[in-house]
């Protein structure tokens, strides 16, 4: 991918290009609806290619009073999105008229932004998870970098789609308690930790309910490496080297 598309986007003078590939990336986000709202888990890693370069990146942020945004993919694009949303929420608050943007509205706004960027061949290289509660109703949705958008009871990005969602499909049910929800998310995050090379063992779980947003302090999961298969890993596949 080293060609530049010769469509004039007004940047010819500035000699800039469109996004071709991401640089500093975050890995999976896993989120579920539970009894009182939405729970969202992510680790705090920022990879630079195959290097686990940054280990204190918060990839889940509160948006206004009613929403939570988690992102995987390019961290700088996530920060840009946070700036857009900041302005959006600010303008919404300035009306000061008893109306406020709920998670549904924020999700749709983000869908429009992502899709429009994709149409200009200059995507924001993220997969976003938007969760929230407004007037007692929980909302959980996702938007990809090409503008694909949908809602569901449980969502995951990146590797989470392959490793976490099967677990959620089997074990998620409506009206999970907070403790059960956290246990379920931790189960998913543990699998991701074992199997996703860009995951680190430092995660945060964020909760959003009618009352507001709480983001947990970073913590680690207990892991177990004494499985029999790890003791003599090549036992079943002796090679000539």
């Amino acid at each position, binding site marked *: 991918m080293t060609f530049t598309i010769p469509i004039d986007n007004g940047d010819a003078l500035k000699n800039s290009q469109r996004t071709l590939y991401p640089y500093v990336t975050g890995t999976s986000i896993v989120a579920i609806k539970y009894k009182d709202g939405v729970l969202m888990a992510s680790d705090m890693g920022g990879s630079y290619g195959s290097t686990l370069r940054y280990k204190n990146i918060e990839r889940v942020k509160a948006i206004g009073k009613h929403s939570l945004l988690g992102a995987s993919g390019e961290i700088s694009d996530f920060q840009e999105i946070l700036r857009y949303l900041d302005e959006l929420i600010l303008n919404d608050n300035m009306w000061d008229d008893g*109306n406020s*943007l709920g998670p*549904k*509205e924020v999700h749709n*706004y983000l869908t429009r932004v992502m899709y429009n960027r994709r149409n200009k061949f200059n995507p924001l290289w993220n997969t976003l998870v938007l969760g929230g509660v407004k007037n007692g109703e929980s909302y959980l949705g996702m938007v990809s970098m090409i503008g694909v958008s949908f809602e569901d009871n449980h969502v995951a990005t990146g590797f989470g789609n392959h490793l976490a969602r099967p677990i959620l499909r089997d074990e998620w049910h409506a009206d999970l308690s907070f403790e059960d929800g956290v246990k379920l998310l931790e189960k998913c995050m543990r699998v991701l930790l074992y199997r996703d090379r860009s995951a680190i063992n430092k995660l945060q779980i964020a909760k959003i309910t009618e009352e507001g947003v709480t983001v947990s302090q970073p913590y680690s999961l207990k892991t177990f490496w004494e499985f029999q298969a790890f003791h003599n890993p090549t036992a079943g596949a002796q090679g000539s080297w």
Partner: protein
Amino acid sequence: MFRNQYDTDVTTWSPTGRLFQVEYAMEAVKQGSAAIGLRSRSHVVLASVNKAQSELSSHQRKIFKVDDHIGVAIAGLTADGRVLSRYMRSESINHSFTYESPLPVGRLVVRLADKAQVCTQRSWKRPYGVGLLVGGLDESGAHLYYNCPSGNYFEYQAFAIGSRSQAAKTYLERRFESFNESSREDLIKDAILAIRETLQGETLKSSLCTVSVLGVDEPFHFLDQESIQKVIDTFEKVPEEEGDGGEGEAEDEAAPAEQGGAGDQDVAPMEI
């Protein structure tokens, strides 16, 4: 109001701090045929008098749907009203498209008012010559606003604009305290009765008025002639008191008020 040397330009102040062009624009609103709005906690009713240029022509449309949850009734220069309705529809649909959620009425009204204000501060423009009664429903409940050519807007429980609107306002002033708790049917009846006040003697027929309703679980729509006529029939046929299915209170008010046209039901309503 008489002509004076400060009224040529909208950007010229008078020594007493008035902008005459803006006030003249408000006069234009008073010349249009009547439009009325009322609201309860859950519904908004907009009604207007159908005025036709001549017997040969159709009547002017004065009530427009802006969105499922917003409607507007206008009085004054209908061309200005049509253009502003188009603006409102555009704002509403753009918001819906971006946020997949209905535009809060209060925000639409402020944008309208800001648009009107611009015309009061540019020497190459003139104020819009139309008053708008914007009725709508959002998260915070049912609302009725009046947008003035001056760029001001006010929220109302009930209001009337246009010619002979003072008669309707008087009627509404007597009854507005009960509107918040009114049922949808009572609200519609009050709207039609208020329209009757503006007719000052003319027989009230369903062909003479347009009525629209919107509410919780009820997108904006017009009432058909039959439904309007049915409501009219409950109070027009019998001028004195009757216990017509528990709607005594409306009759109490109607009886001492306009009685000029009551009982004149020989003319079949025209279908326009």
